[in-house]
């Protein structure tokens, strides 16, 4: 087959055929247009951009060395952050599990419940934790309750969606077998659904707890408790060495959280 075409002289080779090239040019042109629009239209004072590295550098210099005073207060706030994340994750389950049950196609009692469940999941997931926090701070005032509720309301969508998917992906055959024994719907769920989604449940809860620890660190910036409150305070008073200590504390907390979830994941699953 090679010999057949080798008679022709002056062959050319292209990486892409004509249609592929056309698509690539259109996509490229479109991207460049969008980029040009974004760069030219954005409300940025360009001299500041060229000065930004200096500014960032000088901020970094002002933070050094980290100030270890107030470490006790920082550790207290870290603990509060962990409490917020943990309590919120625990509370989430009470809402997320029923919601996932009605939002899964194979367990939902009826169409109305299915759509209600899906609406709750979408609403919860579309609003960021910090926006939820803004809302709850306005309602319940600054403090940890607003933080816990904010984390909880965001987590319901996450846990509920993944649990709903886990329920939809179960093996149908044990369900059939349980129905054949004359078991009621509740018993079929207890025996054929719950055991099958248990591993997914643990994995999802552990994953969300890890994410919630990260998210709890920022709640304080809108007044919803945790380490963010003293971070905001330190920034407002230009106490940059303290800010550095808080940042180190946060990164340590996040890494410890990640390590703990790693161990839990290996233990439980």
């Amino acid at each position: 087959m090679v010999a057949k075409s080798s008679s022709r002289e002056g062959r050319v080779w292209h990486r892409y055929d004509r249609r592929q090239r056309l698509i690539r040019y259109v996509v490229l042109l479109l991207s460049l247009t969008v980029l040009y629009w974004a760069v030219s239209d954005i409300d940025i004072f360009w001299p500041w951009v060229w000065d930004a590295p200096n500014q960032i550098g000088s901020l970094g210099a002002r933070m050094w060395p980290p100030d270890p005073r107030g470490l006790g207060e920082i550790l207290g706030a870290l603990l509060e952050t962990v409490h917020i994340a943990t309590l919120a994750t625990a509370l989430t389950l009470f809402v997320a599990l029923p919601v996932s049950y009605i939002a899964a196609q194979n367990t939902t009692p009826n169409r109305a419940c299915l759509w209600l469940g899906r609406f709750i999941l979408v609403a919860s997931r579309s609003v960021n934790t910090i926006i939820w926090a803004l809302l709850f701070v306005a309602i319940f005032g600054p403090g940890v309750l607003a933080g816990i509720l904010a984390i909880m309301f965001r987590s319901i969508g996450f846990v509920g969606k993944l649990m709903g998917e886990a329920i939809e992906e179960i093996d149908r055959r044990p369900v059939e077998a349980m129905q054949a024994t004359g078991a009621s719907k509740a018993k079929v769920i207890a025996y054929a659904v719950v055991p099958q989604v248990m591993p997914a449940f643990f994995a999802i809860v552990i994953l969300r707890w890890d994410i919630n620890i990260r998210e709890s660190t920022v709640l304080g910036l809108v007044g919803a408790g945790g380490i963010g409150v003293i971070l905001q305070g330190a920034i407002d008073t230009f106490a940059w060495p303290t800010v550095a200590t808080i940042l180190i504390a946060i990164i340590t907390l996040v890494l410890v959280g990640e390590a703990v979830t790693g161990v839990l994941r290996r233990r439980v699953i």
Partner: protein
Amino acid sequence: MTTRSSAPSPRQGRRTWRKPPFIANPWLRYGLWLAVAVYLVWALGTLPFNWARIAEGVPRAARIFGGGFPPSFARADLLFTGFKESLQIAILATLLGVMLSIPFAVMAARNLVPRPVYVVGRAVIIVSRSFHPVIVAILFVAAVGFGPLAGILTLTLYSIGFVGKLLAEEIEEIDWGQVEAMKAAGAGYFATLVYAVFPQILPRQVGLSMYQLDSNLRASAVVGIVGAGGIGGTLMNAFGRYDYDFAFAILLVIIAVILVSEGVSGWVRKQIW
């Protein structure tokens, strides 16, 4: 018929069976329950709840939702400007972040670089992943001032962390035979990267970029809350001025935009793969 120790008393007629507990050791089992109870008491006891203020919550909620409905789109121009800025921040940050994530991903891939470089690359990725974008944003706002520049810098770093991590993992799993083939052909380090490594990670990279654009658009809505530009600032102002009807209008549009962006991003990724 032999019954092993796992089966209860072999005496006929008086056999019982209990479900074997999830945790075999009774001390550990009950200890765990006790630990959970103690933790709950401790956590709830030490957290500073301001009950007097919380009690006002119901009338306040009524006022907020009463003031919020129906949402007001009277200041649609402000809404539009905010979203335009969020979109611009997301686009520029994604572009910068995705481009910068490539060198950092190479640095953080164990199989391509010497150990010291690997440690630096990993450290950059770990640090940029550990900080929530809002914290990074507040620092950039402090350094370079209010406005979209801080937002772009924040989300660029955020993208480097996320895309860089996944890309580094992808690089570590590439088919090494292609790299050897390039080396055998006498290619240098960068030629090997371009011919043997990048083609293998490109599909993944394009998919990740689309995902990251979606993700950055979401995040750009919140970094504004601490002054890094975009719709978040507009939302924060509306809340601060008790303009709840405008705030709810913004929220509704944010949800709509996120849903659309999620759909578009998912569609594009499906087309690519």
